[in-house]
């Protein structure tokens, strides 16, 4: 059972464009929603995270938008750069156990010059 659904599976964006990746979750008890970036041959690295009491969080070119009623959250990458080309995973954690990450299926982002 896929508790966190992620789309699209792959995304091609031109340099300077906006990349948008969407996730939907089922368990309303989830209370921590991080995004991870993974380059080939490396482990995932935390990019940005949000808790459900906030509707938006911005860190540099990365923004998470969170819609609690729709049980959806998204990652926006502004001014996308070729160095952003990687696989992005959304995740969620149950309450009182932020170490148990439940990941989405991933989005492979390619940014072309």
């Amino acid at each position, binding site marked *: 059972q896929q508790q966190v659904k992620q789309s699209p599976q792959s995304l091609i964006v031109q340099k300077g464009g906006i990349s948008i990746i969407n996730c939907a979750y089922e368990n309303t008890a989830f209370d921590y929603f991080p995004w991870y970036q993974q380059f080939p041959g490396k482990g995932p690295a935390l990019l940005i995270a949000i808790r459900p009491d906030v509707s938006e969080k911005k860190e540099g070119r990365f923004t998470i938008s969170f819609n609690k009623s729709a049980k959806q959250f998204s990652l926006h990458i502004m001014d996308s750069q070729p160095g952003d080309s990687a696989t992005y995973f959304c995740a969620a954690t149950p309450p009182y156990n932020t170490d148990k*990450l439940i990941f989405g299926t991933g989005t492979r982002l390619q940014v072309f010059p």
Partner: protein
Amino acid sequence: DAGVTQSPTHLIKTRGQQVTLRCSPISGHKSVSWYQQVLGQGPQFIFQYYEKEERGRGNFPDRFSARQFPNYSSELNVNALLLGDSALYLCASSDPTDTQYFGPGTRLTVL
């Protein structure tokens, strides 16, 4: 500061064999978690250990086991390997804010 380290980097085993993967957390981190990442999919939670105690277990068979040592390093053991166990095995350690930091993983191939 060194990040999470894992060994070995790559491993090739045959069906039915047993394997042990090792993880050293970031200095000062007491929690270690293990994940399995099959090619093209997101990581799946296997175990979490904190202060040598198992705190969580994912939906994996009993062939998978783990332990944490007094220095907070950890081992993941998989017995009776199946072809479907071929994956990248990731270890993560958590800081006091519960942020998880992942190691580079061990690529296990089962033939």
